[in-house]
């Protein structure tokens, strides 16, 4: 549906600073009906990416095709302007026009868009869109008299009223307060899934990306760090950066000491300051190569049953923090330290030795330590 090839965008240097490469040759393929997140820290290029798709930014290299129609091809000097791309977009500031009513805002794409709709059809379409975001009663209200949440719904109704091929959302939840955000996350996903519109959204919040998207592209420094389903990013991070950005992670530097066959796959033994961990997940490192072992705090099992593939370790727990649904603590063994997550109902006795285990299928070996 949306196909992006080797997209590049540089910003000219501003006094004294070096040139900024906002996007550095990114490829993406987004499927019809997919809800896709562009996730990353600030300055990773995700907003430039969205603006390039929207036609608000002109890339320096690469191509963008929406639904088979090429909208940007820098080499062929092709650039379709934003208003001819048939898009819907919700802006970070919502950009609800303050000099119009809710109805006029939502009717804009039908009245002034490039596919004009006959007047008698407009009312039905606008009220339908307002109904979807549950704002029908406010149709005639002037836009300045809306709360933040209502403004967002107006922006959303305006973005879907003309049934665009592609819906773009720029940090859709960042201006809402925490409770409303949880509510809208579910509602927004439900809405775009019902409509079946392919949707791309930008966020810096991993919870937002994981909770809403079918697939996530994690960007870093203008490049793709990893693309995959939320579970892929969480359970099989491709690098220490991904592991740290998506959830908490212990990153233990070390090197591969052995690779051996194991139940149809390969098992890797990885030596760290805490001892040797076994991993059965895919690993590209060869014996002797350095990297890091990524262990999520929740991957750890307390008092494990002894079985093949379970790395067992004995030590003591320190600095327990009670978080309600779980307890987090530092597990110390010799020189090594591991942040672990425990069941909230388990008592933690700081003085008694405790044995923990890390199953091989929960242990990820990555190249590099950052």
């Amino acid at each position, binding site marked *: 549906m949306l196909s992006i090839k080797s997209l590049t965008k540089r910003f000219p240097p501003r006094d004294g600073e070096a040139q900024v490469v906002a996007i550095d040759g990114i490829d993406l393929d987004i499927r019809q009906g997919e809800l896709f997140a562009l996730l990353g820290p600030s300055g990773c290029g995700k907003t430039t990416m969205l603006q390039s798709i929207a036609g608000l930014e002109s890339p320096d290299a690469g191509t963008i095709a929406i639904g088979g129609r090429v909208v940007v091809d820098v080499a062929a000097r092709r650039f379709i302007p934003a208003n001819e791309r048939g898009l*819907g*977009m919700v802006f970070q500031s919502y*950009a609800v026009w303050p*000099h119009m009513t809710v109805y006029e805002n939502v009717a804009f794409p039908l009245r002034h868009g490039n596919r004009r709709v006959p007047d008698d059809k407009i009312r039905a379409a606008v009220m339908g869109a307002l109904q979807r975001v549950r704002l029908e009663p406010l149709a005639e209200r002037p836009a300045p008299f809306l709360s933040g949440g209502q403004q967002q719904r107006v922006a959303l109704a305006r973005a879907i009223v003309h049934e665009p091929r592609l819906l*773009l959302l720029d940090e859709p939840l960042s201006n809402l307060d925490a409770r409303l955000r949880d509510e809208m996350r579910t509602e927004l996903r439900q809405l775009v899934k019902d409509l079946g519109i392919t949707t791309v959204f930008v966020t810096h919040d991993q919870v937002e990306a994981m909770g809403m998207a079918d697939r996530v592209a994690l960007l870093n420094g203008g490049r793709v760090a990893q693309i995959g389903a939320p579970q892929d990013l969480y359970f099989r991070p491709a690098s220490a950066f991904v592991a740290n950005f998506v959830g908490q992670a212990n990153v233990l530097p070390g090197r591969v000491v052995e690779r051996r066959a194991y139940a149809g796959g390969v098992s890797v033994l990885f030596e760290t300051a805490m001892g040797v961990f076994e991993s059965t997940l895919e690993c590209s490192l060869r014996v002797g190569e350095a990297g890091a072992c990524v262990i999520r705090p929740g991957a750890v099992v307390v008092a494990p049953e002894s079985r093949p593939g379970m790395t067992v370790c004995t030590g003591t727990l320190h600095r327990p923090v009670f978080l309600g649904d779980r307890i987090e603590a530092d597990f110390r063994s010799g020189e090594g330290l591991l942040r672990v997550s425990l069941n909230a109902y388990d008592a933690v006795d700081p003085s008694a030795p405790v044995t923990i285990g890390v199953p091989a299928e929960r242990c990820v070996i990555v190249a590099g330590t950052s």
Partner: protein
Amino acid sequence: MASVPSSLSNSLGFSRTTVWLVVAVVAVLVCGPLVVLAVSALTPAGLLPFEARGLTLDNLVGVVANPDLGRLLANTALYAAGSMALGTTMALVLAWLTERTDMPGAVVVRTVFFAWMAVPPAVLGFGWILLINPGNGVLNVWSRALLGAEPFTIYSMWALIVTTSFSVTPTAYVMIAGLFRNMDPQLEDAGLIHGARSRTVARVITLPLLAPGLLSVGIYMLIAVVQAFELPLIVGLTARIPVLSTRIFLLSSPDAGVPNYGLAASFGLVLLVLAAVLMWGYFRIVGAGEKYRVVGARGFRARRIWLGRWRVPAGLGAGCLLVVMAMPVLILVWTSFLPFYQTPGPQALAQLTLANYRELLTSEAVRRAALNTGLLVLSSSTLVVLLAGLVAWISVRGRGPLARAADVLSFAPAAIPPVVMAVAILLLYLRTPLYGTMAVLVIGHVTIYLAFGTRSLSGALVQLNRDLTDAALVCGANGPTMLRRIVVPLLRPQLVNAWLWVLAHSARDLTIPIMLMTANTMVVSSVLWTMWDIPNLPGAAALATLLVVVLVVVVVPVQLVLSRRSASAP
């Protein structure tokens, strides 16, 4: 119960006595002249205010019954509306071109318009007279040679309007460019994304959103032109186009005969009421503008519209406008190097000389005027920034009637036309020892420019997060330390800007210096006026050139540094 430490209960940072003192000073500065103005209007002809036993309505009746009043008001209205419309339109087009399109040379336009503050309106008037006076105006001479016709005359209403609009365009430009910059570009992007063409976006979104702001700029310009004095004096008197401001001047300093202060004060009241009504309208509209405020955007840089094949013509058009605006200054520079005025051409080249400058620099009168000017501009700009800073701080952070009084009092002079204020100050100080000293000029400029200082500094203070100053107090700093260490450093750009603005305007102002002119209070602008009046054209041209050069050298570098710093700030 322990008493709350006073420094925390009063986050102003200084005592109530100081607050009272500041408000009292402002009240005397602002109300004193107004009271005298009102009393003068009610004083019988031939007497000074407070000399007469009884009051009379004769003067006011005289104003209303004056057969000229209709013509005066009509002239003033046509002049103000015409200059405002032309100036604001040019500013709107230029602001759109430089802020929203890829027109080449946007930086040049911006820099020249910032520097324009250094060019006194009086100098523009002189320059335009040299350019298009009937007879030997340069443009007329040239066009007579080329076309056999003399298309221009400076002594007409339209010439007055055009020259005035050139002099107000830069101010309107700075204000309108600010409107464009403060408008969230996402509002326009949202229109494009949802399928509208650029032209539709401009018509349905950009213009309606700008409308309240443009209206307030328009009224602001209208007030400025209604109050304008220099160009109507220099161009309008010869053209016999009297407006209210020049009538007031002529009544209080006639070429021949005795001043009629009562009638001058009464016309002053008419102009004051007119300006006050406009000011009231201005604040109504500024208030309405608030309702268009929306959640601000960050991180988006405004995209520029591609002008395509219009790019070069647009740049050329803007360039031509700059050249036309600079012409009066250029002709003065040219004249300043000649023994007597001649149209530019090869025959005049041989006579170029530095004699005018030599004469100026060795003249005792000019040297004294320069010293006086230095004294005037430095003390009025410093006093305005000090007083306006205190008043702004009291009105933004203080509570209660005293704070509101400070606010209203310091804003009031914005509605008082300088020429009216000058008459009032003249009447107030005429019989005091202050009259005939530089002090009365300083008082005049402090009063006139206080409103600008307060407005710009309160604007900056409102943006200053209250927690920043409260944090200093909680950390144990006392009030004065907090002001010195936190508020002043954070507001330094705005303080320097206000100081410079007052400095430049005080140096270029002609109203106060010529209305309060005595042998001891000659400043550069009043010397310039007398030289022009003699007429000593080359001498006046050389002095005007020196004044503009000094102001440009002082104002422009500081402004460039300040604007660059604020652009790179996060």
